[in-house]
């Protein structure tokens, strides 16, 4: 048995003529959290569906917990938990009934299924609402119950497909803390996300996918460094002065982007504080009025643009 919890080599899957996975490679080490980052339509959900045995790949070597997802699908299902993009729960039943139902389908038997449902409801702060029908749950509660359902048998590998999409900030924080609590229990987590911040918060490693293939792989810090790291954004009062500002600011002019509509210029920085001080001073000396000057991390758009430009 290998050290990798997930191995994907040259995965391909077409829907009609449209390739959803176009030779995707991915390796996830045991006991780590791995984020798959990419925009809508990049193939993230298709990847999760293939890994969780819901979808047959056209070709490629795809193994989960050392087992082939096509030939050994049943054995894979014994070892995985899946949290799909939408809460896959029986809305008519209560939270406890849902967990007992899934526990029985894992063949825990009635008594163990009941006990396990109770444990999970406690653990996810749902004990008080276990009897209430799921359709009366809030988005965050649903997601937590969904997560509880995917943890019934302490899976070796857990798949989370955009676990926080559509949740408010509070629901998102709830899910993040739940995912963090899994780490250390030895579970390998593969999560897909559109948010760099989420990958940053939760993941040990990140794969960036685009058009069905992995375009980059590394720790969140490595990826951000590769993108040029932090940026400084300056919003001017007068868009006409953008050109002048670019010419005199102490920044690397090659990486500057200008957005006239928003009266914004954005430049990569290496030394955060020095850049901030330098920019403010230069603007003051030239008498250019700024509405806002801010340091920020690169956004997914920028990581993305950078990586896809780099590949081209």
């Amino acid at each position, binding site marked *: 048995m290998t050290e990798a919890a997930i191995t994907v080599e040259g995965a391909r899957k077409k829907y009609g003529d449209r390739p959803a996975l176009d030779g995707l490679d991915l390796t996830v080490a045991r006991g780590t959290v791995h984020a798959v980052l990419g925009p809508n339509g990049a193939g993230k959900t298709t990847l999760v*569906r293939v890994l*969780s*045995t*819901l*979808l*047959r790949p056209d070709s490629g070597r795809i193994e989960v917990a050392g087992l082939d997802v096509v030939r050994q699908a*049943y054995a894979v*299902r*014994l070892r*995985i938990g*899946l949290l*799909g*993009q*939408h*809460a*896959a*729960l*029986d*809305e*008519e*039943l*209560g939270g406890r*009934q849902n967990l007992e*139902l*899934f526990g*029985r*389908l*894992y*063949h825990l038997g009635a008594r163990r299924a009941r006990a396990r449902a109770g444990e999970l409801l406690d653990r996810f702060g749902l004990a008080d609402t276990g009897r209430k*029908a799921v359709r009366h749950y809030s988005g965050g509660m649903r997601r937590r119950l969904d997560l509880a*359902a995917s943890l019934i048998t302490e899976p070796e590998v857990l798949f989370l497909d955009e676990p926080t999409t559509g949740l408010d900030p509070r629901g998102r924080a709830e899910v993040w803390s739940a995912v963090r609590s899994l780490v250390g229990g030895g579970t390998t987590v593969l999560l897909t996300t559109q948010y760099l911040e989420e990958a940053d918060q939760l993941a040990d490693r990140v794969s960036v996918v685009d058009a069905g293939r992995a375009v980059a792989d590394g720790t969140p810090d490595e990826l951000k460094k590769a993108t040029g790291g932090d940026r400084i954004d300056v919003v001017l009062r007068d868009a006409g002065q953008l050109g002048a500002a670019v010419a005199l600011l102490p920044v690397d002019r090659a990486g500057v982007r200008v957005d006239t509509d928003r009266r914004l210029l954005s430049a990569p920085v290496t030394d955060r504080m020095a850049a901030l001080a330098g920019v403010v001073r230069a603007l003051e000396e030239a008498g250019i009025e700024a509405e806002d000057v801010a340091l920020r991390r690169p956004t997914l758009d920028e990581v993305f643009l950078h990586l896809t430009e780099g590949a081209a």
Partner: protein
Amino acid sequence: MSMSYALTDSWTMTRRELAHWARQPVRVVVGLVFPVMLLLMFGYLIGGGRGVEGEYVDYLVPGMLALTMAFGLEGTMIALTQDLDKGVIDRFRSLPMANGAVLVGRSVADMLQSAVGLGALVGVGFALGWRPDGGPGAFTGALGLLLLFRFAMLWIGIFLALVAGKPELVQAVQILVWPVGFLSNALATPASMPDWLGTVVEWNPMSRTATAVRDLFGGLGTDQVWPAVAWPLALLAVFFPLAVRRFAALNK
């Protein structure tokens, strides 16, 4: 995966549906009352029974029983498309369970529901003065034919739900089910209709079941039974494999 898992999982899935009933008793009652209302409406309000000789209630009650079995198709479709749409079916498919149990549980629960519905309607029929006089054997046989017809409708419903995939598309099928249900001899005899319509109605599998059931309840013999057995079996021979294949193809 052993045979015993297939059985336990099917039972678990059936229990899931029974838990829905326990959670939503009002909906169950409404489901039972609806055909009763149709029966009362056609029996007393609209005053149908064109071309019927003898008591209309003896004609109408078996017709309504058959119609109720046909309309069961909608319930099957709605329940399954909701599960598909919510991703519940995907969760089941990702579990180490016997996947066929999803469909078996659906069938068992729907058949139980239909049996209860039949019982309620028969009771109301009695209250209205309907008296089947074919004897207990023929009575049981008639109920069996009705449930066989429902079983065929069930698998057509499963197939259509898997094709439609989304609850919104169920409405389109509902619009079709009504004319198919009413283009039958459930409420009026084909002889009372224009020739072309009468022919369509005669050929409607539901009419075959209704006719056979009327004869059995009325003690008029078993001549009409074979088409009421053959039609549902023929429909099952087509739609059962189609539905199973479609379900297996969810991973395509």
